């Protein structure tokens, strides 16, 4: 019940937490930016059939991420599931661009 902390202690705690908040926010922003590249690249690999050339476009970011094993397994899974949609791919590419993955 009694507040043993002095005002000084609480000011220090506040400042530390403010710094932590800034670091976490910056970290989240950087992670989010990387995430856009990563998820974009992953989706480039996992969409079957369409845009073989596009893989090259995204390859700079994709190569770094392709090292993760989960990406390669998901490629198999999606290609299996996506087989039925493949014929639509060429026409849907525009639609996908709008709706893709939000």
């Amino acid at each position, binding site marked *: 019940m009694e*507040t043993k902390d002095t*005002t000084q202690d*609480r*000011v220090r*705690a*506040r400042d530390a*937490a403010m710094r932590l908040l800034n670091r976490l926010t910056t970290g989240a922003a950087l992670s989010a930016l990387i995430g856009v590249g990563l998820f974009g690249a992953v989706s480039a690999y996992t969409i079957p059939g369409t845009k073989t050339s596009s893989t090259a476009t995204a390859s700079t970011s994709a190569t770094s991420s392709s090292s993760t094993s989960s990406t390669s397994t998901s490629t198999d899974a999606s290609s299996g599931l996506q087989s039925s949609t493949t014929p639509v791919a060429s026409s849907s590419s525009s639609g996908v661009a709008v709706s893709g993955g939000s």
Partner: protein
Amino acid sequence: MTKQLELVVDRIKCDGRGLCAEILPERIRLDSWGYPIITPGPVPEHLMGLAQRAVDDCPVLALALRRAEVQRHKTR
């Protein structure tokens, strides 16, 4: 003359979340039950930013910055 602002809390709105005391310990401490005790008087200029932040971050909008009372004597 610079505008003198002081912190006031709406006791009925306040439900003791305690964010204000975390953000501005220089002027706000919590009582034995977690409700803010505010140092009376105008907020010094160098704390205005944090004071405004405490006002903005109050989850129930119970804290406000008001023009300081002209009266010199403080009842409490």
